[in-house]
């Protein structure tokens, strides 16, 4: 008998490694990942009149409101020759992507307990599919941003000071780090909410508060000038770096430096790995505790 023990395909046991991420298995379930993305995209706006138009409406209206309140009323400067509307649209588009990755993944376990309780597949597929779904949405919103950019640049003379920098080729990296940061945080929160449901309440208003600390509707430089004592809060927020860098790459205004980018990249990777570890630990037994 002993000689036959080597060729077991796999073993189900209570012991687990710190990171037990079976990439081969995830690859096997790639079709499921894509089907989940498809499901998320096509079912969200089923039986709505405007359908996918909602993808455009949300950021546009928010930008208009932000422009009215923060720029026209509160006179927050957005840089010379950069239309406030574009400035806000850039910030909101990025922030939305991060926010939806975070909130979308943070309820993975509680939303899918019916599914997870009945059938096994690598659980990480679900949060991954959320991030990918949001990427589709983000892609559409970027198109809107580009559309308005073109309008301002070629059909008005208001965008004289805005010009993309060559660093624009690094935008995919920004998106990547935003994605894994939101995913990592989301996975941590979803794992913790199983036992400590308080976090569910924290997340909904915490995300809103975080937006104000992420330089979405103001430039970092302006914050530093007005509130130098607490500006470190905003400065060390990796989302600030990403949004500022995004505006630097596309509009030419913003704070962009290599050390900060490295810091943000490391921060995101650490959060992501941490999220993965906690998520992995949780997925095996969560069905007993939820």
């Amino acid at each position, binding site marked *: 008998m002993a000689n*036959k*023990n080597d*060729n*077991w*395909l*796999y*073993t*189900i*046991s*209570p012991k*687990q490694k710190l990171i037990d991420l079976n990439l081969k298995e995830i690859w*096997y*379930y790639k*079709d*499921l990942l*894509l*089907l*989940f993305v*498809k*499901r998320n995209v*096509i*079912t969200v706006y*089923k*039986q709505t009149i405007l359908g996918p138009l909602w993808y455009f409406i949300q950021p546009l209206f928010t930008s208009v409101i932000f422009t009215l309140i923060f720029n026209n009323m509160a006179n927050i400067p957005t840089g010379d020759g950069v239309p406030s509307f574009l400035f806000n649209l850039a910030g909101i588009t990025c922030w939305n992507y991060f926010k939806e990755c975070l909130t979308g993944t943070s309820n993975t376990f509680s939303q899918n307990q*019916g*599914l*997870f*309780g*009945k*059938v*096994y*597949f690598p659980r990480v597929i679900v949060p991954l599919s959320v991030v990918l779904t949001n990427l589709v949405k983000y892609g559409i919103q970027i198109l809107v941003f580009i559309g308005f950019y073109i309008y301002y640049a070629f059909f008005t003379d208001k965008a004289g000071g805005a010009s993309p920098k060559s660093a624009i080729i690094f935008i995919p990296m920004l998106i990547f780090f935003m994605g894994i940061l939101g995913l990592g945080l989301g996975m941590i929160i979803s794992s913790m909410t199983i*036992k400590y449901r308080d976090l569910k309440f924290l997340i909904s208003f915490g995300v809103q508060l975080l937006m104000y600390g992420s330089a979405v509707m103001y430039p970092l430089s302006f914050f530093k000038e007005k509130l130098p004592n607490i500006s470190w809060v905003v400065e060390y927020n990796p989302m600030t770096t990403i949004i500022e860098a995004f505006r630097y790459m596309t509009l030419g205004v913003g704070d962009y430096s290599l050390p900060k980018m490295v810091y943000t990249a490391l921060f995101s990777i650490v959060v992501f790995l941490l999220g993965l570890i906690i998520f992995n630990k949780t997925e*095996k*037994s969560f*069905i*007993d*505790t939820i």
Partner: protein
Amino acid sequence: MEKDIILKVENLSKQYRLGLVGTGTLGHDLNRWWSKIRGKEDPYLKIGESNDRSRKGESEYVWALKDINFDVERGEVVGIIGKNGAGKSTLLKILSKVTGPTTGEIKTKGRIASLLEVGTGFHPEMTGKENVFLNGAILGMTKKEIQSKLKEIVEFSGCERYIDTPVKRYSSGMTVRLAFAVAAHLDPDILVVDEVLAVGDAEFQKKAIGKMQDISNSQGRTVLFVSHNMAAVKSLCTRAIVLQHGKTVFEGETHKAVDFYLKSDEANTQAHYINKKPNKSSDILEVSMRDDQNNICGLFGFEEQIILQVKLKVSQDIVEYGSVGFRIRDQFERVVFSSEIDLHQFIKKDGNYIANVKFPKAVLLPSEYRVIIGYHVPNKEKIRSLFDVVDFKIEETGTIFHKYQGVDFGCVMLDCKWSMNSVKN
């Protein structure tokens, strides 16, 4: 010939914590963590008791499964039977990797697909076809596999006309058909099936059982089948395992396992009544349901001998005029039949007596029954009447009606004489 073992379960145990998960868990977590960094064993793993639901336990922790061991050979169809709470579902959940074991391990040489439910992950807004793909992928099929079987699946489900309609417009039966069709076309090495067959109409159930038989017989697939339906277990499985309080109590041939399950002590709590304060003169002392070996038993197979035993105390003045009788009621409180005797036909003097009543075999249909006993002098004196004093259950072990669920066929099977002649027209 060496056995080709495809699945090996070794010392598998699973512990659950009872009560509310909430207050106190942080304390337990810290305690656990503290013993972990000191390199000690988890303090809560030592405690815990067997999972007997009816008794109030001392510990907050119970073992839903305790030291389960068994092997499954390739191509076998193994039934797992046991009462509610015996640990069947927990075992299934661990096998299908929905939850992890506390200790022990399962080794396997093939891919396991589990069917704890049909239609997992169906989205009401998506069309039938889209759901076939999604559900198939959730169950572990690749897109290519599903694509190649799509036609078969749709045909099997019988929903061809609706395949491009959102599932929310389907009748519930259609949804189940479509879902089962996907599941039936899974191609794993080991298939783990819960009582999914208990859905759908009779025609569909027949189809489902047929498909299961097909899978195991012709395709040589290994199947683990969990069910309460003894008839299905008997017809499908080559071997069966009986679980009780989270432990394996029997493992072996299906019919022996089914017999063992029916005979197991657990159900007998209601099959025996002892009168603790009998009257001095005449009374019913004990009532019990017995099998043909005179063992107390509350669970019978359809064709088994059922015996009602009554212990009586008879005083001299009752001997001449007294009667004892019983009524059998079903779960809807309908009286199925009654029987009564006059004591003087059997006994001539006072004393304690045991009356054995043999029920006719293969008459009561599978269901639950209760017994009412009366001991009296007719129209004159009621000595003792006991309502629902004992109850017993007849398990479905393969009557002609086992194919149907939830249909009322009455309570008795009568030996009707059928004949059929061919006619020309």
